[in-house]
């Protein structure tokens, strides 16, 4: 479908959709393969998720939704959600490497930056249009996918099918996928502008995108305010209290009356139970201490993390414009 429009002469531009003019036309024409891939990928993924949710709801209704009997379906639904979420998790990396990095680097490497900037348009307007159109396409795509994934997951969000704080869910719902993707995208654009070589920029952007994912994974659970539960019970005969609701367990430990915490492996080295008791008693351990993140914090954690990422994105965009202001050959 892309070759069809390209064969037309300019004066008879009868492309689908609104007729683009000026820089918008140039940017869309130059990157239309990438943009159509993004659009097509979004449509495919959206179709897949709608299909999966429909199937899941059929199963659930047959089992007495909204309180379905358990029995086998959790595993298959959970694994499909996890796999899809896992796949969607690659999008920031893919978009950063294949859309972000070549966006400016290609023009700088091929010299077409000279062609465009020696027309009657300013460099800044050109860069702004390239970035603007790309960000818009990526923004719309990620918002659609995020909404659909959330819609698919929401019927089972209170069950144990898949934890809300797992990467597959947390990174693919709400504002997170958009923020992660936009940050990686503009990072790739900036890397491409500085390095001015397409392939090199793609490699470096890949490293950058993976680093973003690693750092994000590290900080994901630190975005919330952990709550704690304390019991007064014999730690040898009772197990740790269950986390209320659908909360995410962060840490289990022993506590003393004064609140001093010991790891739950404390005193297990003693040979007899009596010796263990004596050991625990001697340390003053009186019960369990559990730290967890309640499900109710999910949304605020997502927005907090996303706003940090969006602030970084804005900073990178500012850098791109400062860098792009100076003449480049």
């Amino acid at each position, binding site marked *: 479908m892309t070759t069809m429009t390209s064969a037309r*002469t*300019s004066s008879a531009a009868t492309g689908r959709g609104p007729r683009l003019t000026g*820089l918008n036309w140039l940017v869309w024409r130059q990157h239309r393969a990438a943009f159509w891939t993004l659009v097509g990928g979004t449509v495919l993924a959206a179709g897949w998720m709608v299909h999966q949710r429909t199937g899941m709801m059929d199963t659930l209704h047959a089992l007495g939704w909204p309180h379905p009997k358990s029995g086998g379906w959790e595993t298959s639904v959970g694994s499909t959600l996890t796999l899809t979420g896992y796949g969607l998790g690659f999008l920031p990396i893919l978009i950063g490497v294949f859309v972000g990095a070549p966006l400016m680097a290609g023009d700088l490497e091929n*010299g*077409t930056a000279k*062609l465009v900037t*020696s*027309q*009657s348009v300013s460099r800044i307007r050109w860069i702004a249009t390239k970035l603007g159109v790309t960000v818009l396409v990526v923004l719309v795509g990620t918002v659609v996918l995020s909404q659909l994934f959330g819609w698919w997951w929401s019927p089972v969000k209170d069950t144990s099918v898949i934890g809300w704080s797992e990467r597959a869910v947390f990174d693919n719902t709400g504002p997170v996928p958009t923020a992660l993707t936009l940050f990686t995208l503009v990072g790739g654009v900036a890397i491409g502008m500085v390095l001015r070589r397409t392939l090199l920029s793609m490699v470096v952007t890949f490293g950058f995108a993976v680093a973003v994912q690693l750092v994000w994974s590290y900080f994901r659970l630190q975005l919330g305010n952990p709550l704690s539960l304390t019991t007064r019970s014999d730690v040898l005969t009772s197990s740790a209290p269950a986390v209320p609701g659908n909360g995410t367990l962060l840490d289990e430990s022993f506590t003393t009356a004064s609140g001093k915490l010991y790891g739950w492996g404390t005193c297990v080295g003693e040979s007899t139970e009596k010796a263990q008791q004596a050991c625990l008693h001697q340390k003053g351990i009186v019960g369990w201490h559990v730290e967890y993140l309640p499900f109710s914090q999910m949304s605020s954690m997502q927005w907090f993390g996303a706003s940090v990422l969006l602030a970084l994105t804005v900073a990178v965009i500012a850098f791109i414009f400062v860098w792009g202001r100076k003449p480049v*050959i």
Partner: protein
Amino acid sequence: MTTFLGTGPTAGHGRPRGGAPAAIEAYGVGKKYRRGWALKDCSFRLPAGRICGLVGPNGAGKTTLMGMAADLLAPTTGSVRVFGTAPGSPEAQRRTAFLAQEKPLYRRFTVAETLRLGRELNPGWDQRAAENIVRAGNVPFEARIGTLSGGQRTRVAFAVAFGKRPDLLILDEPMSDLDPLVRHELMGALMAEAAAHGTTVLMSTHMLAELENVCDHLVVIADGGLRLAGGVDELRSAHVRLTGTFQATGPAGADAALARHTVVDSRADGYRITALVRPAGPVDGVWQAETPTLEELLLAYLRSPQVPPLITNESQVGDRNLAKAVAA
């Protein structure tokens, strides 16, 4: 015996400074790259309406100078003005077209789309002028740029530059990959365009034929510095090629006779001396005097870096403006 040379002491007295508005003014322009200075302290003025050849050895700073006028590079020192404004200003951008040496175009665009690029991005676009240039080479509009030959691609790049209808056309070695026939045709189109619209052209070239037939103005740079700037006729008539024999003067006599003049280049064999001289008045001695060809002039100045440069009056920028620009 004294041979009176018909020329005045130096060139350019007939024309008042600033008579024609300037297309390009360079004030103490320098550009430093990591490997050193590509251009140093370059000051000149290109009057509007000229077809100016920019000549110099490879690596002399020609592309750098053109890049600065086209706002692709910022000078390290000094400043460049295009029609009195900064090269990056909207007015200068609208009035200047630049054709880079490698003729960059989008390889996956068709020829028609490439012309559309020009039309979409330039308010004064002349589609007919652009299409005519493409048609003259029988380049199919539906062909993708990547499938064209080098010469065809150059033609399309020319069409984009012409279609903009610029007041200043900057061409970096425009003809290097064209066959003689196409070169002749495109040069003809260039001259017709320039004549019809008063376009100023600044083109770098290595081809003397192009210079002799097309250019009426010359800027020569070597080793990052200006060597010559001015109208071709004026520059030529400011010099004289002298041929004398030692029988008439003797070696010492020849040196003495030429001492008060600027000898740009001289070579002697056993009994004869040939010198290209910028005379400071009548030359003593018996000489056969001729006005040098453009080629002789060029070669002499490129060979002799120690000879002070010659910038004709109309090619000089005002000292006051220069001081202001350097201070700023």
